[in-house]
């Protein structure tokens, strides 16, 4: 018999796994493509993080609800249809309400469909767990993805543009590190973050 406290402990464990132990970027190296591409400005990183979190939550809810109905042989295509639907919703809503951000992150919103975090969590977690646990897992993974993206973006925007969220932070004569605004800068910063994250979590390379 499951007691209430055990349920709570389970929820906490699910959440901590998502934001730290099984962190999608540090631990599983998933979702790297988009993390590299849209972490050049904090604003874009927040929008992308929110988009991925929303898609994770919506997908988690629907897959956990349908988990007994989804035929095993077509589960992958089912995930794909569900994820694609919510990604298109995010894309349209961004275009309608935040046209500037939509233009800045452009094609990467559509590429949330191929973000392995969502596919990975669907297969590893939502298909086997109850709605509540799935939503907590979605929130944790979304949060884990978002805070990593935003931390990388803070470093890149500060050095690449001299600003944070568009506000000038660096002094007037500051020489912008153009490489930080471009893809190579993302590789450097993300690699350093993964290194720090893994060292702190005490993970060993396999």
């Amino acid at each position: 018999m499951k007691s209430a406290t055990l349920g709570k402990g389970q929820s906490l464990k699910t959440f901590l796994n998502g934001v730290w132990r099984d962190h999608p970027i540090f631990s599983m190296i998933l979702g790297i493509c988009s993390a590299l591409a849209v972490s050049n400005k904090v604003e874009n990183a927040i929008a992308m993080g929110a988009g991925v979190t929303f898609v994770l939550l919506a997908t988690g809810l629907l897959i956990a609800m349908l988990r007994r109905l989804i035929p095993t042989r077509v589960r992958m295509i089912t995930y794909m249809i569900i994820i694609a639907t919510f990604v298109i919703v995010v894309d349209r809503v961004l275009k309608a309400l935040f046209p500037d951000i939509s233009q800045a992150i452009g094609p990467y919103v559509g590429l949330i469909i191929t973000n392995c975090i969502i596919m990975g969590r669907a297969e590893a977690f939502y298909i086997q767990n109850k709605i509540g646990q799935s939503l907590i897992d979605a929130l944790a993974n979304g949060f884990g993805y978002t805070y990593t993206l935003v931390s990388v973006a803070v470093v890149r925007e500060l050095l690449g543009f001299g600003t944070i969220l568009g506000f000038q932070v660096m002094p007037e004569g500051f020489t912008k590190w153009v490489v930080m605004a471009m893809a190579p800068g993302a590789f450097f910063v993300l690699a350093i973050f993964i290194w720090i994250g893994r060292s702190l979590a005490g993970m060993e390379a396999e």
Partner: protein
Amino acid sequence: MKDKILMIVFVLALGSILTAALVAVNYLTTPVIEKNEEIATKSSILKALSISFEPDQVEETFANKVKQRQRNGTTYYVAEDGNIAFPYSGSGLWGPIEGIVAIQPNFQTLEGVTISRQEETPGLGSRITEPQYLAQFEGKRFAEGLKLVQPGRSSADNQIDSITGATMTSEAFVKILNENIEETVPEIRQGESR
């Protein structure tokens, strides 16, 4: 057999429901998105014509100060002071570059250039969208074609500075402007001289 039929029914049902949801979202957002795009184009035209405006009054300012005209399928926009703006487009280094270019009533010099769409290298080619870069086009003579020179070397009134590290984009941009001006300005000239 029964499994297979159930599988197909499941996929079809899920697909239909989700498609219906998408149709609804599309129906709700399309008018807003079109409105956003229209405002973006109008503010781009106002900027090219050097008309100052409040960000929330693009529509009103545009309606009061700019007239839209047509000539042989070319749409162009005339401001109160006679400046004329028209859209341009062409291929940059990585993707299309689109925007608005405005000329002065003498049909000889540029009034302003704006960019509304580009996919150039971030931090290098994308610097063509920086106001400081676009500002140099103001007052340049385009009648004999704009000419690209090395960064900081422009001296004659038809010369444009290129961007360090983004030569290909700079070249493509000036070429796009020259081609569009050459094609569109004679049309507008005919339209206006009637």
